[in-house]
């Protein structure tokens, strides 16, 4: 059994002892996308400061992000945002005490996963249409 280094007391079972499932994956992804968005704020701050600084600074930002790799990062950022948003709405519903049974959790899991991808793709279709 795993033990806590500082006290020698046993630790509760962690990720590796559970069978992998969609619900578990979404729980992990909710936290992972939250952390990604935390770091992603740097892209947002950089953009706002670049626009405030002038054409040269914005041109540099656009050079970094308006290429296949940069766009993939921005696409990933918007997906993380929508995924975390859909997961967050799920949590807000759970906070009211509703939809806590396994069947409901599975159906909202499917819905929120699909909705996050759909919203991400929708936003980028708009972005490329107005380009």
């Amino acid at each position, binding site marked *: 059994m795993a033990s*806590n280094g*500082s006290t020698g007391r046993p630790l509760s079972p962690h990720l590796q002892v559970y069978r992998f499932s969609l619900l578990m994956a979404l729980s992990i992804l909710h*936290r992972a996308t*939250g*952390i990604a*968005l*935390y770091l992603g*704020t*740097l892209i*947002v*701050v950089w*953009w*706002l*400061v670049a*626009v*405030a600084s*002038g*054409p040269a600074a*914005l*041109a540099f930002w*656009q050079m970094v*992000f*308006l290429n296949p790799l940069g766009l993939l990062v*921005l696409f990933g950022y*918007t997906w993380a*945002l*929508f995924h975390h*948003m859909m997961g*967050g*709405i799920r*949590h*807000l519903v759970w*906070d009211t005490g509703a939809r806590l049974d396994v069947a409901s959790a599975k159906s909202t899991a499917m819905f929120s996963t699909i909705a996050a991808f759909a919203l991400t793709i929708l*936003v*980028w279709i*708009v*972005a490329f249409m*107005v*380009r």
Partner: protein
Amino acid sequence: MSQSLKTPLGKVRGLGSAKSGTDHFWMQRLTAIANVPLAVAFVILLALTIGKPHAVQAATLANPIAAILVLLFVVAGVWHMRLGMQVVIEDYVPNEGRRIAFIVINTFFAAVVAVASIYAVFKISFGA
């Protein structure tokens, strides 16, 4: 499990060991609700302007409605992410000294992100 004789209201008024009561939980939810429409507005703004030249982007962000929406998103978003990252740190950093150091850095990071963004939006809006 030992039973406390305190009522739930009494426990809340006592604010628990951290003396902050349900504030963290509540602000996490409040900023989450605010972020739903604000993040959607922000992403649409970004999608509409991302490839445009500087003059267009600056004019778009200088629009009062766009600027206010971005400012609201920055405040609610940064507040939300600071609370969220604090929980992640509390979960994964067992050493107390290191944990407190990370929580301090978390707050500083949030403050820098917020102030830099707000400064930028003000500069775009009011010029010079």
